[in-house]
């Protein structure tokens, strides 16, 4: 893993590269962005990108790529940035990642590429996510990308769900010459990218551009199809002639805490809260018809410590919440949210109530939420997840006045596809069983990946599953062997 001696285009000598500070991402000032839905991060300029790219140590064995779920060739695309060939850099990323403008924004890089960057042993890691985003955006601005040409294979693949994993499968397989049609249950394509992640973190325009690109490559899309209800997996294969099906239906049903008062008006699941805002544009009511509760001057809390929780509470803040709390039962160290989001949320004034959990919601006589009764926690022995188990502290109960509470503690398996596909193996939690490498299910020709297999995870992990599935589907379609 020592820096390579290969001739480099980089004008900065290897020994000096650690002295160059990580280039800061330009961002909207916290006090300003807390009141709008525009993107927080503004993106590198070409100059910043090249300066940042020059920090790369060009390791002989790049751990960044090894730790990327889709295997982006980081060193190679970063070298192309150093050389100033940004379009080639974008094309290099696209060899492994069909959604770079999206992953450049939402991927938890600290857990993957940047987490193992050699620089991070001494200084801050290379801004790989920022660079990825830069070249993807640059490519879009230039309006030029190269469409791969490929001979048709004569095979048809149905992809169920247009979220990150389904789109990855579609993008990879269309480049192998297969005909691909993506079915989406909602009226808009993108899955969690559209209904879950807010505009200020991932502008919808970015997703539309990625989808346009995929359409140009020949991917077909059909919205308003709930596979399992509108058509079954068997019908897709037997009647509509699909040679293989990929199931990427996503996270599924929101979990609740099963504490008293969760049915009161003002208690939302994060999925509903975010869907109203992101998919249905309820924040633009009455220009859009879907309503949501008026949050102006209200006290709002989200329960949970993941990215979804932060997306929800930062949205509430932007919709005028007077107080915006994150209530999380563990401590900072265990928070699963992306580090940059936690940092941004603190800057914006989100009040983090750590080691705290609600035990009951209270309401007025008409059933409207007024208060969360909470308890403080301390960390005990590690639990099944390896994280220290939070234990309630005796006598620590207190009341927190709240008008709206958003529950963001995870999801459980959506049963629709499993219950309508005979012979499709599931685990005891109801998720679809799929091989870790081939993503094959118990049904011939049927593959699955993403949250419907693993339970709630991240965009990039779902894309990684999509990547493996596409490879394995291509093999199956080529050899016919199961």
């Amino acid at each position, binding site marked *: 893993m020592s820096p390579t001696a290969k001739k480099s285009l980089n004008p900065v000598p290897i020994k000096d590269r650690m002295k160059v500070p990580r280039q800061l991402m330009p961002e909207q000032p916290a006090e300003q962005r807390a009141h709008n839905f525009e993107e927080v991060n503004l993106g590198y300029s070409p100059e910043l990108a090249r300066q940042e790219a020059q920090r790369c140590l060009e390791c002989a064995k790049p751990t960044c790529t090894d730790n990327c779920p889709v295997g982006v060739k980081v060193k190679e695309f970063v070298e192309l940035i150093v050389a100033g060939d940004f379009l080639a850099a974008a094309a290099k990323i696209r060899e492994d990642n069909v959604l770079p403008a999206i992953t450049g924004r939402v991927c938890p890089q600290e857990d993957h590429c940047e987490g193992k960057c050699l620089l991070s042993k001494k200084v801050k890691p290379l801004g790989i996510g920022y660079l990825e985003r830069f070249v993807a955006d640059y490519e879009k601005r230039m309006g030029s990308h190269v469409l791969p040409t490929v001979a048709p294979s004569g095979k048809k693949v149905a992809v169920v769900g247009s979220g990150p994993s389904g789109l990855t499968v579609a993008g990879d397989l269309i480049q192998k010459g297969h005909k691909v049609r993506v079915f989406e249950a909602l009226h808009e394509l993108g899955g969690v990218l559209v209904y879950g992640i807010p505009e200020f973190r991932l502008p919808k325009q970015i997703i539309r551009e990625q989808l346009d690109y995929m359409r140009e490559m020949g991917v077909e899309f059909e919205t308003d199809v709930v596979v399992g209800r509108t058509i079954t997996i068997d019908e897709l294969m037997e009647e509509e002639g699909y040679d293989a099906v990929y199931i990427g239906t996503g996270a*599924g049903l929101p979990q609740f805490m099963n504490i008293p008062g969760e049915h009161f008006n003002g208690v939302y699941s994060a*999925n509903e809260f975010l869907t109203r805002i992101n998919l249905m544009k309820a924040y633009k009511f009455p220009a859009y018809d879907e309503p949501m509760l008026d949050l102006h001057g209200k006290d709002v809390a989200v329960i949970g410590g993941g990215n979804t929780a932060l997306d929800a509470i930062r949205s509430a803040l932007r919709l005028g919440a007077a107080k915006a709390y994150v209530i999380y039962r563990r401590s900072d160290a265990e928070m699963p949210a992306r580090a940059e989001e936690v940092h941004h949320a603190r800057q914006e004034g989100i009040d983090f109530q750590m080691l705290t959990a609600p035990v009951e919601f209270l309401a007025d006589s008409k059933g409207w939420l007024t208060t969360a009764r909470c308890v403080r926690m301390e960390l005990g022995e590690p639990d099944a997840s390896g994280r220290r188990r939070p234990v309630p502290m005796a006598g620590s109960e207190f009341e927190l006045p709240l008008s709206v509470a958003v529950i963001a503690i995870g999801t459980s398996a959506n049963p629709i596809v499993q219950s309508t596909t005979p012979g499709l193996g599931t685990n005891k939690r109801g998720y679809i069983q799929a091989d870790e490498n081939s993503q094959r299910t118990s049904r011939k020709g049927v593959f699955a990946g993403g949250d419907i297999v693993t339970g709630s995870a991240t965009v990039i992990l779902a894309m990684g599953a999509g990547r493996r599935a596409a490879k394995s589907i291509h093999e199956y379609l080529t050899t016919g062997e199961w």
Partner: protein
Amino acid sequence: MFKIIHAEFLAPGIKRFVIEAPRIARRQKPGQFVILRIYEEGERIPVTIENSDSERGTINIVVQAAGKTTHLLNSLNTGDGILDVVGPLGKPSEIAHYGTVVVVGGGVGTAMAYPTAVALKRAGNRVLSIVGARNKELVILESEMRAVSDALMITTDDGSYADKGFVTDKLRQLIQNGTRIDLVVAVGPIVMMKAIAELTRKENIHTVVSLNPIMIDGTGMCGGCRVLIDGKSEFACVDGPEFDAHRVNFEVLVQRNAMYRDAERQSMTEYQQHEASRSAGHACAAVEPIPGGRA
């Protein structure tokens, strides 16, 4: 875009649309519904499927004008299109040979009860139907219900047609007459379903109701449609919409359906003002929006 092949009023404010939706038509079963969205800025609302024709590839939906979206929907006609129609959603009715089944339809709920009555009749049940409406004009699907029922009873709140009274009066009479009832299926306003549930609970008659909470995606993703069943949250879109009436907390359903009442009134008022200015001189009756619920 889903094309409207035919549109007709069944009663004032209640319209039936025949919509080209071949995928949905093929799979629709009694008890299921669709979610639709009329235009880009529109909300998603759950709507009753009254019938379907898998050969023609069409479904029939029945919509009662209550809020802005349903009013807009009912202004559409043959040849118009609906932007999004997705379904069939929800679990189908459990159809079996029960013996004697009483099917109760209240108001526009009759359109939801009708396909279930058809299926129950086909399964060999003796089907006794009770249809209730506020007045004569609002009685819908009378001949259709009569055709699938061994007996059809009709009530109107004001007595302007058939018997004055409520559907519960008829059900109570059946019980008092000693009619053996193996199952009651009731679809209609929440107050009606609650009254039916209270009546049959005392008699220990298994009763199924079709619930109509506020809903967005209809696939279990958002959890907005959660209802309290035996004190536990269940989702009407994937666990229902039909539930054992005796386990349903109707008070919570009423409370949750009131969640957006202010916004719904605002939308409706703005819609009416817009309509009034569009067709100036045309008096527009003030209609109280019904919060949430299936159209």
